[in-house]
């Protein structure tokens, strides 16, 4: 086991290196650089641009250096815990992102809980009642969330919540609570706003969850030991809960690899439409304005989380399931 983990960790290093290169290339792919898109933005609004200042900034930001040099500076900076500087915010990247992490994680966790709360009973029901109208109906509800384009649903819900409940549009709290210390009122205001993104993001995830739970459970339910148990007169409830359900839950663990980065990045598009104070809009903005270190470091962060997440889920699976453990590294 120890060897297995060590090997996995070692293979992570070249993977991450390749990812870092890819990230850098991808950020550089769109034409121009941050300062050009900054000039374009100012000029499109008729604001004057101080060309000399731009030249100065270009050398300050190191944008006049060759690409490989910019890459190496960034890479070695990251190794030393320096994630670079955001041009757009004129702040170190950690300060820009750090501020928003808490709310992002909050939304994500609530959303995941919401997704599970819906998907779990539906998945179990439709596996145990395969091809019944209940199965069809509930899966239909689940898929409905997946099929509705999130960005439109988000806007409609914001508008309706404003018209019928008077909730302020967008954001995660009424504006007066932003930057205010936590209080009961602030908490209530967050609750009042939180449900819309949770429902919009959550509904799009339930379908996948339902489908996987259902498929896994169906597989499990056809196994011999279930048949034996049923023949021996085990109550259906116990028969379901005791083993099949547990085994079919393995995919939750296998999902950690996807879950970790998803928690941090949030659902970008919905977050943009709803103007949520999460990391998603920052990432999108940074990509669009070519704020390269902000975008790059954040992407790198997500990539590391994915890789680590996959590692954790593999290790957990190995620990939980002796079959995987014994097969060694075929686990993937």
């Amino acid at each position, binding site marked *: 086991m120890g060897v297995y983990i060590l090997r996995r960790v070692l*293979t992570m290093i*070249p*993977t991450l290196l*390749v*990812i870092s290169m*890819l*990230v850098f*290339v*991808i*950020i550089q*792919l*769109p*034409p121009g650089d941050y300062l050009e898109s900054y000039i374009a933005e100012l000029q499109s609004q008729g604001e004057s641009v101080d060309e000399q200042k731009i030249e100065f900034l270009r050398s300050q930001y190191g944008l006049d250096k060759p690409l490989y040099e910019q890459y190496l500076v960034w890479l070695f900076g990251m190794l030393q815990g320096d994630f670079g500087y955001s041009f757009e915010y004129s702040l170190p990247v950690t300060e820009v992102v750090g501020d928003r992490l808490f709310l992002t994680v909050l939304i994500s966790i609530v959303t995941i809980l919401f997704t599970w709360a819906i998907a779990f009973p539906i998945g179990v029901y439709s596996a145990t009642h395969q*091809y019944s109208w209940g199965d*069809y109906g509930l*899966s*239909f509800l689940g*898929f*409905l969330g*997946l*099929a*509705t*384009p999130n*960005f*439109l649903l988000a*806007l*409609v819900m914001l*508008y309706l919540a404003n018209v019928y409940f008077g909730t302020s549009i967008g954001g995660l709290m009424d504006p007066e609570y932003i930057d205010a210390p936590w209080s009961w009122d602030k908490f209530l205001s967050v609750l009042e706003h939180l449900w819309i993104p949770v429902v919009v993001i959550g509904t799009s995830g339930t*379908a996948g969850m339902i*489908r996987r739970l259902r*498929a896994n459970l169906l597989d499990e339910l*056809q196994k011999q030991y279930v048949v034996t148990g049923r023949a021996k007169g085990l109550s259906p409830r116990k028969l379901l809960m005791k083993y099949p359900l547990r085994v079919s839950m393995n995919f939750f663990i296998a999902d950690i690899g996807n879950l970790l*980065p998803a928690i941090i*990045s949030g659902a*970008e*598009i919905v977050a943009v*439409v709803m103007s949520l104070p999460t990391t998603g809009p920052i*990432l*999108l903005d940074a*990509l*669009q304005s070519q704020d390269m270190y902000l*975008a790059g470091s954040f*992407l790198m962060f*997500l*990539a590391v989380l*994915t*890789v680590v997440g*996959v590692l954790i889920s593999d290790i957990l699976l190995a620990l939980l399931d002796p079959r995987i453990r014994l097969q060694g590294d075929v686990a*993937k």
Partner: protein
Amino acid sequence: MSRDEQQAHFVSEAEFNPHSIEALTPEQERYFLASQWTLMWWKLKRHKLAVICGVILALNYGSVLISEIIAPYNLHTRNTDYIYSPPQSVHFFHDGKFVGPFVYGRDYELDMDNLKRLYPERKDDVQPLRFFCSGDPYKFWGLVDADFHLVCPPENGTFFLLGTDRLGRDVFSRITYGARISLTIGLVGIMISFSLGIIIGGLAGYYGGWVDASVQRSIEVIRSFPELPLWMALSAVLPVNWSPILIFFGITVILAMLDWTGLARAVRSKLLALREEDYCTAAELMGAKPQRIIGRHLLPGFMSHLIASATLSIPAMILGETALSFLGLGLRPPVTSWGVLLNEAQNINVVALYPWLMFPVVPVVLIILAFNFFGDGLRDAADPYK
């Protein structure tokens, strides 16, 4: 007991057949002799919803072939006297009498205070719809001149089943034309990702070793990458002077390029298991080349599975196209796809004042649901011996 009596003991006259006990009923025989595809079909039939969804899909794809005929107006026909006209409802009875499908004529008023256009109905002006008629002229498939439509607006009248947009274009017609792009983007995309997945996954699974390792690593890299930046970067590379159709194709490729990993993984793990089977070793010993072994012996073994999972990823492509449009990276007007239409509907004016412009959401939802249920049914059916 006489000997005769003893002889009366029943002896079958029939020829001795040692296998008679194992003989199959005709049903069983059909079952075991049926090809895999037939089995799948039988199994699929049990999933009623999947069948219904399959029919819906077939109808939709069929309609794409004749968009020009179904749409009462052309894609770019503007009715500048009817800007932001709400949907016109089709009536059948006028003054309690049945007159067949008709719409009421309408007036136009401009509310200068709010800058809002109003279209009050004239309740006495019955305008019957025309069917199988000549309307807007078009080039069928860009080749043949024609003007035949299923439904046409009344003479000197209008028929906006789902209202009009800001240039007075008929929303229903635009949805019909938009389906052409939106529905095919999924198919084309899936074909690309399918081939990529099979080829790459097949190579990895069959050869193993360093091929497998490097494929595995690249899949890992692609997967640990958030989709959005990849989309953005790749659509930024699309050459400057491509025509809209090429761009459309490019975007499809982009969507597909990110989608093959899941399939490749599935192919690989199946192959890893299958190549150890005896029949594979046999083929190898007989001197079959790897392409032949993979293509002829291994792939058919789980083709049904692959098709089912491909069906399930088409919806992701269709939604991906709408998301790309939303980000301003995908198709843009004047190209018309459902994503473009939805993106145009994505503002507060529409939500508050012109909700009918959000109608394209209905076909999107319908198609995606249909694909999901159909794909689910296919997948349940893909393992026929279960």
